[in-house]
């Protein structure tokens, strides 16, 4: 990468560049720093930021104005921002006059904006973005009518600016292509299987006896029969409660109806149980989550749907860590060994298992793949397609399929190579079926399938339909969007508005919040660490799942009722079931369904900020760190971006010997000036939340880590001050201070939505548009849905 480096202090070097050759002549204009900026920097900044040893590793003595260098552009934006915020030059050591500063700010702002606008005019703000693996999976589901999991077959994706949708960070290599082709093969195999073989049917109606152990004398991990019911006692024994009678003969989606009741339930509550799946043998210790229920004395029936690979079965057992546990010798349970230990249990009355499909039926899949061609099946021979003119039929079908897969009208030219695949296959003597399969495979490997097609400037209606659909649904545009695009009506503001509401209210829109929050709030990482069982005794997988459900339900409520995004910081309601409520020390919630609960100050909860999910993903399972939580809250909820520690300054190793609490350690750290600059922003939210432990529970004291004892350590002091000097005593006061500026919360949500939805972070030249979005949303008190509407209607979203 060659960038003309120009020392702005030296006019001579500028001239040198200019005469160095015709190549540079043009660049000189581009790399020139505007006069007002140049003089401001040399008069105001150079005292400290001079040379390789400049403060914070920032050397402005040789800074160039070559804004085509992305890194340099960001440096200039940073200089601008810090001056604008009044943080630089340091107010206590410098007395700059307002007029010079204003001149610097307006000149620099124009300079940066104009440059970026010019660049975007030619290239757009989003470089060729491609579908993520989740989007590929759902698109293949839509295109082919299938329902099998596919995303896991493709490599994990990197998140850039927080999201896998951000184009500049999306990797591409032969590994990606290879896995993509393999995933496409699996999808086509499934679609052709569904189309050509008899429908998948299976129904097992299992009695208690049928799910229990066969031989009551053997010690096993299956339920035992007690009073005609299949019983599993509360215990830590792995796979105890496995039900071999539910073993899948084929990979597929299954619907289970489980009728169960509680045994020896603790006073006033039921027995919370987990439903998980797995081969339940020691070589495969992982048990993916299926669901949970709270069994009561009165038998009830629950329904769960799960993907169940061939050979896997269900495990149903009490899963509440606060229950008394039975112990069994030798890793097996003998009938009659659990009862005398007087622990709670679950009694299964019956289990029904039914194979299902999510999405279209087999007939629809046949139409998708073969149009109106008839399938001929003759005894045991493979099926064939009936066609009088295989060439013509293949050409027609491939064309239709490509049009859908490429998600915009296709010209003959575009589709010709894909039709040619089918023709070549037919010429080789392959059947029409095989020829179609080969051509579809090529279509689904095409860059036209994989990449968004956006041309610099305003998006055309098809590009808009795609961007919108992958934003709100993470799947391909449906028929209605495509028809509106064909008529050129989608970009009409009124139509667009109606479509957004239609899409969000559609069942497909229910996943928007979960998809977005999985990355925005790191909820996809909820099980990255497992809280230390000895320190966090009440935590279990039911609590964890309930925390996710809480946050999803909460965000959906904000969206559905257009409630202010200020609720992220504090709210007077949340969503709980009895298990999570008990974990939060809230005792007025009954039952296992998630329900809206009004909060009082004594509950000490309110806003996503205090959701267990957030408190957990911002801790490491053992302890909390105000720094990690602080950075996270700043960047994800408050909209304050914390820069990485300076690059060319050797990192300073804080000597924290002698400091006993995290507060003392950080105080020592902050005594170093270059650390303090960022830590005044990082630490306040971190300290405000110190009363919430690594599992999300309220605490008054730190745990005594060395003794593995909760609550044995020093008392927690959550008080602190904001960068502007306002002080708070606890989380509640911190929340109130933050809520004095709800527009900052809204601005952050808008930025996150734009980054996720367009595939590029909000740039300097987007700032005016962002201001307008916020101003517009202010009218609805920053309602989440209004904000989303404003985001989509903005030029940032409507242009490449």
């Amino acid at each position, binding site marked *: 990468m060659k960038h003309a480096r120009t020392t702005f202090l030296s006019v001579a070097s500028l001239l040198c560049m200019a005469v160095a050759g015709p190549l540079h002549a043009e660049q000189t204009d581009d790399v020139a720093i505007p006069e007002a900026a140049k003089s401001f920097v040399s008069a105001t900044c150079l005292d400290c930021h001079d040379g390789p040893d400049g403060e914070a590793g920032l050397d402005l003595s040789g800074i160039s104005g070559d804004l085509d260098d992305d890194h340099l552009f960001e440096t200039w934006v940073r200089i601008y921002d810090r001056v604008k915020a009044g943080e630089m030059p340091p107010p206590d050591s410098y007395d700059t006059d307002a007029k010079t500063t204003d001149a610097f700010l307006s000149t620099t702002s124009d300079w940066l904006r104009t440059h970026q606008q010019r660049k975007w005019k030619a290239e757009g703000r989003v470089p060729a973005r491609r579908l993520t693996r989740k989007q590929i999976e759902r698109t293949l589901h839509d295109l082919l009518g299938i329902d099998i999991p596919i995303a896991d077959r493709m490599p994990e994706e990197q998140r850039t600016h927080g999201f896998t949708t951000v184009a500049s960070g999306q990797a591409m290599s032969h590994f990606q292509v290879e896995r993509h082709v393999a995933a496409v093969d699996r999808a086509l195999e499934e679609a052709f299987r569904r189309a050509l073989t008899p429908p998948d049917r299976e129904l097992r109606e299992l009695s208690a006896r049928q799910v229990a152990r066969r031989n009551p004398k053997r010690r096993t991990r299956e339920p035992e029969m007690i009073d005609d019911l299949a019983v599993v006692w509360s215990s830590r024994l792995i796979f105890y409660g496995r039900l071999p009678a539910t073993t899948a003969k084929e990979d597929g989606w299954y619907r289970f109806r489980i009728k169960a009741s509680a045994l020896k339930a603790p006073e006033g509550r039921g027995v919370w149980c987990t439903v998980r799946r797995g081969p339940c043998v020691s070589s495969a210790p992982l048990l993916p989550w299926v669901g949970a229920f709270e069994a009561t004395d009165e038998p009830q029936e629950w329904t769960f749907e799960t993907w169940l690979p061939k050979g896997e079965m269900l495990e149903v057992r009490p899963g509440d860590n606060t229950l008394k546990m039975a112990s069994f010798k030798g890793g097996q349970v003998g009938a009659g060994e659990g009862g005398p230990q007087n622990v709670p249990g679950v009694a299964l009355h019956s289990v029904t298992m039914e194979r299902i499909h999510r999405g279209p039926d087999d007939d629809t899949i046949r139409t998708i793949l073969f149009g109106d061609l008839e399938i001929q099946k003759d005894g045991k021979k493979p099926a064939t397609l009936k066609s009088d003119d295989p060439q013509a039929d293949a050409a027609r079908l491939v064309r239709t399929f490509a049009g859908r897969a490429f998600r915009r009208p296709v010209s003959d030219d575009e589709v010709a190579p894909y039709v040619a695949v089918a023709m070549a296959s037919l010429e080789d003597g392959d059947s029409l079926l095989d020829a179609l399969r080969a051509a579809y495979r090529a279509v689904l490997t095409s*860059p036209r399938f994989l990449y968004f097609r956006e041309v*610099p400037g305003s998006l055309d209606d098809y590009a808009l339909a795609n961007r919108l659909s992958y934003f709100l649904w993470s799947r391909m545009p449906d028929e209605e969007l495509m028809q509106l695009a064909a008529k050129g009506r989608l970009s009409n503001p009124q139509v667009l508005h109606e479509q957004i509401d239609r899409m969000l209210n559609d069942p497909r829109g229910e996943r928007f919040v979960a998809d977005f929050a999985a990355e925005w709030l790191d909820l996809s990482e909820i099980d990255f660490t497992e809280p230390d069982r000895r320190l966090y005794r009440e935590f279990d997988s039911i609590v964890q799942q309930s925390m996710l459900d809480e946050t999803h339900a909460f965000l959906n409520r904000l969206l559905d009722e257009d409630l202010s995004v200020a609720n992220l910081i504090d709210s007077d309601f949340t969503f709980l079931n009895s298990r999570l409520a008990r974990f939060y020390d809230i005792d007025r919630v009954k039952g296992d369904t998630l329900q809206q609960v009004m909060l009082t100050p004594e509950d000490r909860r309110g806003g996503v900020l205090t959701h267990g999910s957030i408190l957990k993903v911002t801790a490491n399972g053992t302890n909390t760190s105000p720094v990690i939580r602080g950075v996270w809250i700043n960047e994800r909820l408050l909209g304050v971006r914390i820069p990485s520690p300076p690059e060319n300054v050797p990192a300073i190793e804080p000597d924290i010997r002698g400091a006993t609490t995290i507060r003392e350690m950080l105080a020592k750290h902050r005594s170093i000036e270059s650390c303090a600059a960022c830590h005044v922003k990082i630490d306040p939210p971190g300290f405000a939340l110190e009363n919430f432990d690594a599992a999300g529970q309220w605490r008054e004291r730190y745990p005594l880590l060395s003794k593995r004892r909760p609550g044995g350590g020093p008392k927690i002091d959550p008080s602190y001050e904001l960068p502007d000097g306002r002080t708070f005593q606890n989380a509640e006061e911190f929340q109130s201070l933050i809520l004095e500026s709800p527009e900052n919360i809204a601005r952050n949500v808008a930025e996150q939505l734009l980054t996720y939805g367009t595939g590029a972070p909000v740039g300097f030249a987007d700032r005016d548009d962002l201001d307008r979005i916020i101003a517009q949303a202010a009218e609805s008190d920053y309602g989440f849905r209004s904000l989303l509407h404003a985001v989509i209607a903005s030029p940032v979203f409507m242009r490449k």
Partner: protein
Amino acid sequence: MAVTKHFSFKQRLSRRTMLRGAGVTLGIPWLSAMQSAFAGPAAQQGPPRRFVAMTLGLGLLGENLYPEQPGRDYAPSKYLEPLTDLKNQLTLISGSSHPGVSGGHKAEASILTANPAGASGRAKNSISLDQYMAKYLGHETRFPSLVLSSRGSSSPSYTENGAMIPAEDSPSRLFERLFIDDTPAERERQAERIREGRSIMDLVRDDARRLARELGPGDRDRLDAYFTSVRELEQRLAASEDWAERPKPKVHVPKPVDISNPNDFVGRQRLMSDVVRLALETDSTRFITYHLGSSGGVVPIPGVEEGYHSLSHHGRDDEKLEQLAIVEAEIIKAWGDFLRQLAATDERGTSLLDNTSILLTSNLGNASSHDNRNMPVVLAGGGFRHGQHLAFDRKNNYPLPNLYVSLLNRLGMEVDQFATSTGTQTGLEMV
């Protein structure tokens, strides 16, 4: 960033060219004329030369790793005490790092590329050492390279266009890929898929070109990456056509059972190391990276009570340093056991260790302060004159890419530059 300057890759016949020339009946996977120009006479005579990189996400405490004395007469350090029997199979290099690379954890991306991409956000990454080797020498084996990790898909291995290669973290899945044959029907189906896949790759590649012309200039680079990826895949498919029909090697050990506890760092390391050894022994591949990434939880070893990552931020706290040393000593011990197993495996009169260069390193010289200088570097085996501590200036570091050039030369590749190297590794001689 040019990886190499003075070498012509064209000295090797393109495999595609050969296949076209030889027609479809070509039965022998590789003719000697097609062997890379790198693989000189030496490579054809003796046992194959290999390279394994084990990379740590959280560094190693320099004071416990390095002896105080430079040279050959050093008293073993705390960590190397249990590896005393291996002294003459090891070289310690202190005071070296990748010039210009910073960014703390982000520099993980640079461990084997030596490219300052991770930190600056200015440039994209370049090819990693293992992939560079695999590119020119990887065709000899079923798997050109293996990219492994103890948890998650993060790896230090990067392709030429700077994309990270996702790692395999399950020893049992790796074992299946290496040693368990598909059914003949499945093999036939695979082979058919590969043939069909190659023709599709041709088509898609052409279409990517056409599409790039329809789009804006900003999109072209990225479609170019797609185009290149497709072409590379096509080349790989061509190579795997032959392997798809041949049975996999047999080993007389049962398939390993994966360890589910994500915090059992050393247990996972030992299990994966066992499969790595099998992969080398059966010549399934010659180039392996194994990333032991950062792990948040408490490593289940007596005396360790805090999470590994949090311990690495010890801040010179005695208690933390002590616990961290327990974890790191166990890692080194497990590594030593791996070396001993290779040393005990006979290969035509030499040992597997003699023919395999094994590098243990990390992007972090000091995890507590996220410092990327003074990287921990230990080299074992591979046929070098070991038994010494090469001590360089800890204030003004020696360029580590020089070692990478020496490792390339050891494989018979006559390159004189890798990334920011300035020569070959000072003080390190081949046997």
